[in-house]
């Protein structure tokens, strides 16, 4: 299949954009990565995602697919002969989808809330929420992995991708708060998992370096704190 048949619109700092890219790597699908400029939206993006105007967007044979988890499931189904990303059992699939939705709806917002928190008390409350979430996810790992190295078992799957894409931003948050969040005490299983995930060949080249993300985060913070021009 020609590389240009598959395009991903995205930006390097975005954890959501990492998701379809990891999925395509796992399926050994070549694709063209079209980097959006931070702060502006290309015509192609606005055309392909008129509802949300957000990245990532996957364009396959000219047809767009939007929303990162919808895209990952699409990739799994469109390239069904490749390594499966979701388990085969309907109950296990429901569990993987449940925890991925939890990550997006509850856990990642709580991580973002740390940077936005007002005052020490607010910050502590936000940190406690993230830790609570990690403990839940650690428990989920034990149930889903069934003793294997990843949420998906022997291989990286949907839920590994859903959580793993945030590891870069998690490290940035740890540096900015001077706290260890992904900690042996809170989430012993996830500590080992995160190292295995980050060093996996499908992920390695995509995970942004922490210092680059830190610079980007500081730039964003400055932008929001600056008076409107």
């Amino acid at each position, binding site marked *: 299949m020609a590389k240009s048949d598959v395009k991903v619109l995205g930006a390097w700092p975005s954890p959501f954009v990492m998701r379809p890219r990891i999925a395509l790597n796992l399926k050994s699908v070549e694709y063209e990565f079209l980097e959006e400029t931070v702060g502006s939206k290309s015509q192609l993006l606005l055309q392909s995602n008129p509802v949300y105007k957000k990245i990532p967007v996957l364009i396959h044979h000219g047809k767009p697919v939007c929303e990162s988890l919808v895209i990952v499931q699409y990739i799994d189904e469109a390239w069904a002969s490749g390594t499966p990303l979701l388990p085969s059992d309907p*109950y296990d699939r429901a569990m993987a989808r449940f925890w991925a939705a939890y990550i997006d709806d509850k856990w990642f917002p709580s991580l973002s809330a740390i940077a936005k928190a007002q005052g020490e008390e607010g910050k502590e409350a936000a940190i406690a929420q993230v830790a609570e979430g990690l403990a839940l996810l650690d428990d989920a790992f034990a149930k889903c992995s069934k003793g294997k190295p990843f949420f998906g078992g022997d291989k990286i799957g949907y839920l590994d991708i859903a959580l793993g894409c945030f590891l870069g931003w998690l490290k940035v948050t740890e540096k900015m708060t001077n706290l260890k969040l992904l900690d042996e005490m809170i989430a012993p299983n996830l500590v080992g998992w995160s190292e295995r995930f980050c060093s996996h060949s499908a992920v390695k080249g995509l995970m942004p370096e922490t210092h680059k993300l830190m610079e980007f985060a500081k730039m964003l913070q400055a932008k929001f704190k600056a008076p409107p021009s």
Partner: protein
Amino acid sequence: MAEEVKVFGVWGSPFSCRVKIALKIKGIEYEYIEEDLQNKSSLLLKYNPVHKKIPVLLHNGKPIVESLLIIEYIDETWKDNPLLPQDPHERAQARFWAKFVDEKCLPSLWKACWAEEVERETAMGEAWKNLELFERELEGKRFFGGEAIGLVDIAAIRIAFWINVAQEAIGVEILNKEKFFILWNWIDELLGCSIIKENLPPREKLSAYYRTRAAAAKGSK
């Protein structure tokens, strides 16, 4: 093999309604358990410890939660009368629009329903934008799922019935009949199906609930 299927729900909830409709379409018998949200049962807290919410589908002792995820589970477990299309791109579209209903469309519709006079125009504008986007997806089809009811139709029961009943009870017109005549055709088709009709809460009871809320909102000013 005797399957044990239970649904934990609440009479007025569109989310438990979705699950009931999906099971009915598949011809699956189930036991329904009404929950009191002011006094959640120990079973509900056991089966949904993370969110503590209804609906919960219990299948042979295993709980599945989150209504849209439950529908996908139902579709993958019982293969008759598919609720999602076969084609991967169409499946992605179905998942996208079902998510859109919950994440973007309904919040804007509710905001417009309950908006104070000063905010109403802006809220209405936002709601209408989302309805226009959504209506376009019908593309001359009978249902969002094509000839048969699918995931998006079941998800959008919130618009077809709940917003429908609420706007009448509150005295606002978000789902304008002239502006959204294509969507109204779909609403009439959907609500005309016996499988839907039989699983909706009593209209009058739901309407009375919204009238009470509307009166309380006015009274508190």
